[in-house]
């Protein structure tokens, strides 16, 4: 098989493995939808002050932010250390499969799950909560998704590289992303957050990714809605993650 066929081959099995694992499907695919239903329903008609949008319009991009990060960073950072400690990565490393193809299969897997979630969240938002799917800002939305999905995949590999054990993986990953969701306005509308909190959240990529995502969905956005500044921060974090991953990623168990 040539490189592209081999990536597709690996991706096909990664997809099969994902959809057959009920826990993975629940946390990656269903939980974001549950959050969407809860948050968009509770805050449906509540005006988000300062932004002049109704609750559902705020939470569709917020939950998309969560969904992308779940399918990339969280998924990779919880699965890879488990596979490493189980000796599965070591066995794969002993085959002629080029490491780059393995990585491409995994990233491809996360990107496809991301794409499915984007479609689901957008359609549910439009049909149930009347949140218009962006038209003028669609290119900006797509660019934001691509930059975000790649960057957060890199961060997933970086976290996987520094997490020492299988048991630590979900704990470390959730302890990293959950507080940042709250501090970045993903769960709590940003007008409820003190400015100091947002300043702190602005150090990290989740807040910037959400800002770019929100602009694409905001009906008040004039023009194309590209948030290059925010995307640059997200991409910089992705690059940092890539460097950490290349430097520290291990295929063998740390026994």
């Amino acid at each position, binding site marked *: 098989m040539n490189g592209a066929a081999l990536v597709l081959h690996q991706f096909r099995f990664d997809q099969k493995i994902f959809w057959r694992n009920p826990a993975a499907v629940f946390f990656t695919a269903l939980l974001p939808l549950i959050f969407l239903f809860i948050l968009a329903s509770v805050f449906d008609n509540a005006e988000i002050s300062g932004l002049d949008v109704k609750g559902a319009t705020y939470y569709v991009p917020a939950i998309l932010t969560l969904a992308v990060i779940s399918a990339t960073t969280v998924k990779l950072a919880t699965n890879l250390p488990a596979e490493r400690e189980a000796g599965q990565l070591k066995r794969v490393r002993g*085959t002629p*499969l*080029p490491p780059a193809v393995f990585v491409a299969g995994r990233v491809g897997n996360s990107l496809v799950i991301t794409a499915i979630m984007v479609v689901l969240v957008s359609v549910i938002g439009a049909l149930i909560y009347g949140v218009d799917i962006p038209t003028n800002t669609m290119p900006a939305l797509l660019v934001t998704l691509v930059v975000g999905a790649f960057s957060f995949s890199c961060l997933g590999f970086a976290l996987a590289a520094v997490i020492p054990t299988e048991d630590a993986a979900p704990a470390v990953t959730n302890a990293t992303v959950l507080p940042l969701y709250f501090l970045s306005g993903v769960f709590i509308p940003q007008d409820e957050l003190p400015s100091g909190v947002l300043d702190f959240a602005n150090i990290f990529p989740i807040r910037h990714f959400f800002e770019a995502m929100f602009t694409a969905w905001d009906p008040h956005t004039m023009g194309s809605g590209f948030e290059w500044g925010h995307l640059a921060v997200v991409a910089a974090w992705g690059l940092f993650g890539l460097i950490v991953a290349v430097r520290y990623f291990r295929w063998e168990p740390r026994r």
Partner: protein
Amino acid sequence: MADAVISVRDLHKSYDGFEAVRGIDLEVGRGEIFAFLGPNGAGKTTTVEILEGYRTRSAGEVSVLGIDPESADRAWRNRVGFVLQESRLVPELTPREAVEEYAGYYSSPRDIDETVRLVGLTEKADVRTAKLSGGQQRRLDVALALIGDPELLFLDEPTTGFDPSARRQTWDVIAGLAKLGKTIFLTTHYLDEAQTLADRVAILSAGKIVATGSPESLGDRGMHTEIRFRLPKQLDVADLPDRIAREARSDAGMITLNVADPVPVLRELTTWAEGRGVGLPGLNVGSPNLEDVYLELTDGGSRVMKRATR
């Protein structure tokens, strides 16, 4: 060796000042089943992982299929298969799917169904691997190592922790691989495994090879035949013929003799018993086996046991 698949000269490996491998030389020929035998901590896995390209060495020369494994490339990995000591399977896949996934990694893989059959998993081919027994999972491991149709297979303790029937099934699979002309490098701490499967055995103790040869030749090396029987109650060691009494070790009525040439001794013993009109309950003539060699070579077994239980 004319056609050496593996060739190792004066291999050393140290970790943080501890010398795990202390100067190993070995050669494995094409089509050979070579067993690397030793207790836990003797350096077996360290050595095999150097040969597999997973580890770097501290000193020495290593050639596997004509290549230094430290610079192993895709072409080389196409020609070798590994069964690692510890590697779980992907629970979501079936054996057929797992083999199919690995088949895609190799340039000219074997037939998938035929490989599943070879390891005896045809009936379980479409059951999730999570539902397989330990022995079945291990045989699937062998199938994954085999699917690329390698010239050389490394099997690192393939039956550790198995019940006897699972071990026997795995042995059948390994013996079957030899018929395919594969060269097999096997590590084990089971003597019977080495004795059953291997053409040649190297015994490793504390990072050094202490003996090499065929299982039979190792067994013959200066080893005596052991004769055991229970002394009838009314008799004493002193009642035995002089020559036998001198050699006899008595342990709660059980007599053990270690003799170089068992035939005359047995004749004398049975003649004596017939003359006395007594039987020799529990008479047992044991041929020397690897275990004896192994214990002798690894310091009477005391250190072996200590290391093994550490």
